[in-house]
C-alpha cells in the first residue's frame, strides 16, 4: 500500500498526462467523426484540447524535471571532471528554482488579472483565469521536483551513478 502511494506521488504529473493525452486523442477523433460523418461541427472540441495541451505542457514539464529529462547542451560541460559536473548540475537546479519562482509570480499576476476582468473562453465560456492556472500550479510542481532532485543529489553525492539508481 505504502509503495503504491509512493508510486502515485512519484508519477503524479505523469498520471495527469495520461488522462490529458487520452482525452485529447478521443476528443479530436470525435471532432473528425462529427464533422465528416455526422456533418455537424463541435464548437468546443478544439478549445478544450488546446487547453489540455497547455496543462500537459506544464504538468509534463514538472514530470520531466523529476526524470531529469530537460536537456541542455552538454558538449562543454562534458569536458569538466565528473565531480564538478555534479556540483554544476546542482547549481543549475538551484538557479532553475529561481526562474520558476519568477514565472510563478508573474503567472499568479496573470491569473488575477484574468479573474478580475472576468474573461471567458470563446466557445465554452470557461473563465480564462482557471485555464491560466496551469502556469502557477505547474510552476509549484516544477519547484517541488527541483527541490526533490537537489535533495537526492546531495544525499547521493558521494555514490556513483549506478548506486544512485539513475536519479542524478
Amino acid at each position, binding site marked *: 500500500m505504502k509503495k503504491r502511494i509512493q508510486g502515485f506521488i512519484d508519477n503524479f504529473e505523469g498520471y495527469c498526462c495520461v488522462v490529458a493525452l487520452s482525452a485529447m*486523442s478521443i476528443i479530436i477523433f470525435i471532432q473528425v467523426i462529427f464533422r465528416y460523418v455526422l456533418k455537424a461541427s463541435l464548437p468546443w472540441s478544439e478549445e478544450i484540447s488546446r487547453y489540455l495541451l497547455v496543462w500537459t505542457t506544464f504538468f509534463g514539464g514538472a514530470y520531466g524535471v523529476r526524470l531529469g529529462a*530537460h536537456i541542455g547542451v552538454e*558538449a562543454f560541460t562534458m569536458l569538466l571532471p565528473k565531480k564538478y559536473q555534479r556540483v554544476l548540475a546542482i547549481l543549475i537546479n538551484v538557479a532553475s528554482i529561481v526562474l520558476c519562482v519568477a514565472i510563478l509570480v508573474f503567472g499568479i499576476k496573470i491569473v488575477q488579472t484574468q479573474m478580475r476582468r472576468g474573461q471567458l473562453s470563446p466557445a465554452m465560456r470557461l473563465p480564462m483565469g482557471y485555464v491560466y492556472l496551469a502556469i502557477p500550479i505547474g510552476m509549484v510542481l516544477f519547484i517541488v521536483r527541483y527541490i526533490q532532485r537537489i535533495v537526492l543529489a546531495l544525499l547521493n553525492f558521494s555514490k556513483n551513478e549506478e548506486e544512485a539508481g539513475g536519479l542524478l
Partner: protein
Amino acid sequence: MTALLFVPFAILVILGFPIWTVLAGSSFIALYFGSGTPLTLVVQRMFTASDSFPLLAVPLFMVAGNLMETGGISRRLINFCNSLLGSFTGGLGMVGVLACMFFAAISGSGPATVAAIGGIMIPAMVEAGYDSAFSAALLAVAGAIGVIIPPSIPMVNYGVVGSVSISSLFAAGFGPGILMGLALMAVCYVAAKRNGYGKLSAVQFRWSGVWHSFRDAFWALLMPVLILGGIYGGIFTPTEAAAVSVIYGFVVGLFVYKELKFSDLPPLLMAAGKTTAIVMMIIASASGFGWILTAERIPDVIAAAMMSLSSNKFVILTLINLLLLLVGCIMETTASIIILTPIFLPIVTQLGVNPIHFGIIMVMNLAIGMATPPLGVNLFVACSISGRTMEQISRKLVWVLLLSILVLFLTSYFEPIALLIPRLMGLIR
C-alpha cells in the same frame, strides 16, 4: 538590449542549462535590464504559444508512434520489407532502411523510429554477421528519415513558427526522404559487398513470401495511406490525422494484432507526455525570446551581415547548411528550429527560396544532427540497443553521414527534389 539577450544566452548554454530555462532566463534578463516592457510578457507568451491547435499534433504523433512500437506493427513492417529485399547483398541492412522509411510514414519522430526498427533490426543484423557498430550507425541515420518522410514533428514546429502550411511541408518531405533511403541502401550494399556482411542470412525471394507478409502487414501498411490520404483528401488537418492515427493504432494493436495490452497504456502515455512537455516547454519559452529578437530587429541585422558576404542564393544556402549541421550536432532539434527559423527564413525568402523548400532543408540538417555526436538522440538510442559505445559507432558513421549530407546538398540546390510532389499535388505554385 541585444547584448543583454545574447550574453546570458551564451553563458547559460555553455553551462549546460536546460534549453527552456536558457530561453526564459535570458528573456527575463534582457527585459529587466534593457527595457520598460513588463516581464509578464514572457509568461503571457508561454501560455499563448502552448495554446495552439497545430502543435497538438506533437503529442498525438508521439502517442501514435509509441502505440505502433508496442502494438506489433513495426515487426510486421520489417517482415514485409525482408520478403522484398532480404535476398540481395546487404539485404538485411536495406530491410532496416526500408522499414525505417515505412515506419517514418506513420511516426513523426526520429528516436522513436530508431527504437522501433533498430530494436529488432540491429540484433538481427549482428546475428547475420554484420558488424554491430556499423548496424547501429546505419539505423541511427536511417531513423533520421523518420522526420523527413511525413508525418514529422519538426515540420509541425517549423510550420507553426514560420507560418507555413504543414500539409505542404509534409508533401515536400517525400522526395528527399526516399532519396536519402536509397543513398543509405547504396552504402549498405557497398559495405556488405566489401566486408562480406550478411552471408549467413540470405533469404530466398519468393512471391508467395511477399504476399504472405503483405497480408500480415496489411493493417500497418494501410495506416500511412489513411493518414496521408486523409490530409490530402481534405478530410482532416494534420492534427486531426494524428488523433485518427492514435485511435487506429490503438484499435489495430488491441483487437487486430492483439499485441497491445491495456496495462501498456499508462507507461506509454506517460512517456509521450514527458517528451511532449519537454518539446512544448522549449516552444513556450522561445516565444518571449522570439518577441525580443523581432522587437530588436535582430533577424534584420543578421540578414544584412550575411547578405554583405554574398547575395548569391547558393552561397548563402551553403553557409546556412554548414551552420545548421554544426548546430544540429550540439543542440536539440525543436530548440534549433524555434530559435533559428525566425532568423534564417526572412533571409532566404529575400533570395527567392521557397519557405517550404527551406523548411525541408532545415529539417534535413537537424535530422542529420540527430545522428551525429556529441548530442544525437538517435545515436543514444542506437548505442543502448547495440551495446557499443558512442566512439565505436562514430567510426562507422563516416560514409553513412557523408552520403546523407550529399543528399542534403542536392536537395538544397535542386529545388524539385522537395517541391515536385507538392507542386504536382497542386499544394503550392
